[in-house]
């Protein structure tokens, strides 16, 4: 009987050698005359174990990792001697994939299929519950679909946390000859890769989510604006779109219904600010990515001036589950006003980095220390940055913060797109503050002064502080600049750069050559 071997095509696995592992496996298996089928799946998300190879045995999958091409020889030798997957003796054996604690602790709703199926096989997608959400949606009135999304409590996963159902309602209510669904797949935040993983590991779920959105608001065209740094995701998406088209899930009559929906992938060109929704729309129109003033909202006047839903990949990819299983099944997870699950990304100096989908409410400390296992370097943690380059740095004192939109806001932070970057005690927080200004200066679209000029002034001032020049005066100037940027910038690039800067300064004053101002009791 053919044995199925799973070796991810995920870019992170490939960056760690998965293609070479797959090639070697195919070659050695052929030489040993063992009958194997190599499936290039998505990643299971345990990225410290990539390339993670799985061998299927009587319907169960056994994991081995991280596997180098040289490790393949041993695996194939054992298989050719008839060893059962469970019995293969190697230090790389990890047992049943689904029993690995990092995997077992998760609640995978959006990522339910990622790593399990062949990402570009429509048959596999359907065999694992795919397109059940669309079937439900087609049986509902558009307003019924929107009600489900509202009831689920889903909020935008791109960062701002705006209720998705309300955005959809606005576009639904707008009158126009053409409406659009735009997927924001620009994922520029350092420390984030969930969009990439789902697009590479289960692209159909995004396609299905966008199709449902199109039917709900009467939009017949969709674009996925994908950052150019993600060529593997582009390939997977295009293969999946072709398969969906060929099977009638996209096109003039979606599943034989009266709804039309066409979908296309468009590549960005390396501008971080194009993740901002109005800049993204300008870019899609073929212009410089200058941020637009709001109003008008994209929901009223978006792409080419037409009513447009613009949602993050994860927001759209959550929709098929919500339709298939019901809004309540999604809303049952979470805390407060943060309903459902969040695919959290553990990155940077962390022992067990990867994707961890879990209900809102888990604390930062549990994520970083229990799930992530602390630092990769083995040194103590000094700071974690949550929510990308515009997110705050948190010290260990704040590790009791639950992962929840409001809880992070209350502590002058943000969850953003759910990325957590861990730094050990060798990090110099003044340097990180300088980098925040530097990044803003490099990526500013240039439309407004507080951001364009403020970031450059901030970088210069940090250089002076780091050089020991008039520290106190210059630190006051940094605080002042941050205030101007926070309240005077048109978009969150300039407006949120103060988060990393001020959090670094507030929580780690020693690194800035300033004594702690906190009362002794708080130490």
């Amino acid at each position, binding site marked *: 009987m053919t044995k199925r071997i799973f070796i991810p095509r995920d870019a992170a696995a490939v960056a760690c050698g998965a293609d070479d592992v797959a090639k070697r496996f195919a070659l050695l298996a052929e030489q040993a005359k063992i009958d194997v089928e190599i499936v290039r799946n998505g990643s299971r998300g345990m990225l410290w174990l990539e390339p993670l190879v799985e061998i299927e045995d009587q319907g169960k999958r056994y994991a081995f990792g991280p596997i180098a091409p040289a490790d393949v020889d041993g695996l194939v030798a054992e298989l050719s001697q008839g060893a059962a997957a469970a019995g293969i003796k190697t230090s790389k054996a990890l047992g049943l994939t689904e029993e690995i604690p990092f995997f077992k602790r998760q609640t995978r709703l959006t990522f339910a299929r990622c790593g399990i199926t062949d990402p570009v096989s429509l048959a596999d997608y359907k065999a694992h519950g795919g397109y059940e959400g669309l079937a439900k949606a087609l049986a509902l009135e558009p307003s019924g679909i929107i009600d489900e999304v509202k009831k689920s409590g889903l909020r935008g996963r791109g960062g701002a946390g705006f209720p998705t159902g309300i955005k959809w309602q606005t576009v639904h209510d707008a009158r126009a000859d053409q409406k659009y669904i735009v997927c924001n797949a620009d994922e520029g935040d350092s420390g984030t890769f969930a969009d990439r993983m789902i697009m590479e590991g289960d692209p159909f779920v995004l396609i299905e989510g966008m199709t449902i959105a199109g039917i709900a608001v009467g939009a017949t065209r969709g674009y996925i604006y994908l950052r150019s740094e993600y060529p593997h995701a582009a390939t997977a998406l295009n293969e999946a779109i072709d398969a969906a088209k060929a099977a009638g899930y996209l096109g003039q009559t979606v599943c034989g219904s009266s709804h039309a929906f066409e979908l296309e992938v468009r590549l*960005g060109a390396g*501008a971080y600010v194009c993740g901002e929704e109005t800049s993204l729309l300008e870019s899609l129109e073929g212009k410089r990515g200058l941020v637009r003033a709001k109003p008008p909202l994209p929901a009223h006047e978006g792409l080419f001036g037409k009513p447009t839903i613009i949602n993050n990949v994860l927001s759209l990819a959550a929709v098929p589950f919500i339709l298939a299983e019901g809004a309540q099944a999604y809303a049952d997870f979470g805390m407060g006003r943060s309903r459902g699950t969040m695919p959290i990304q553990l990155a940077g100096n962390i022992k067990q980095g*990867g994707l961890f989908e879990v209900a809102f409410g888990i604390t930062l400390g549990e994520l970083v220390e229990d799930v992530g296992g602390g630092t990769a370097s083995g040194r103590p943690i000094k700071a974690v940055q949550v929510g990308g380059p515009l997110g705050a740095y948190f010290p260990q004192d704040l590790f009791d913060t639950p992962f929840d939109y409001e809880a992070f806001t209350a502590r002058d932070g943000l969850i953003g797109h759910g990325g957590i*970057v861990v730094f050990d005690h060798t990090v110099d927080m003044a340097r990180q503050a300088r980098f925040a200004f530097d990044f803003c200066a490099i990526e500013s679209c240039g439309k407004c002064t507080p951001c364009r000029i403020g970031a450059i002034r901030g970088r210069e001032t940090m250089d002076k502080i780091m050089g020991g020049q008039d520290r106190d005066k210059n630190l006051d100037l940094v605080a002042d600049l941050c205030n101007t940027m926070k309240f005077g910038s048109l978009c969150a690039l300039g407006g949120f750069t103060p988060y990393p800067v001020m959090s670094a300064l507030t929580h780690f004053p020693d690194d800035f050559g300033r004594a702690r101002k906190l009362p002794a009791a708080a130490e």
Partner: protein
Amino acid sequence: MPRHDAWNESETLAIVSRHAHREGPLLPILHEVQETFGCVPEAAVPVIAQALNLSRAEVHGCVTFYHDFRDAPAGHYVLKVCRAEACQAMGCESLVKKAEDRIGVACGETTPDGRVTLEAVYCLGLCATAPSAMFDGRLIGRLDVEKLEAILGEAGA
């Protein structure tokens, strides 16, 4: 061996006409022009502008806005090292320094013999297997001194 065609107007116009029917065709056109010629040269700007009925300033503004587009071809090999936060946490800065010392040019520059361009990139989405790089279009995770030496050796630098 040059990797790209020398710029010429007729190929540029062919590219434009392949995309002209699309909504918002400029970015796809610029991407294909760069893939074909290795850059979007000054000379291409008026040609594209005229074919799309745009002003030169609009096309020029677009080309210069995006980090991806170059006005002159890069070196034969391009090494992009990620310098964003997750990679910083894993020591990318010392690797950038190492690469600079080894090839003798600063990040953002090309070696005088045109072999290698060293560039910064801000996140490749490989932040859990940092530090990350892209060499000659190939992704590299868990970059360390050894892998860096091997890459630069491959580039003949």
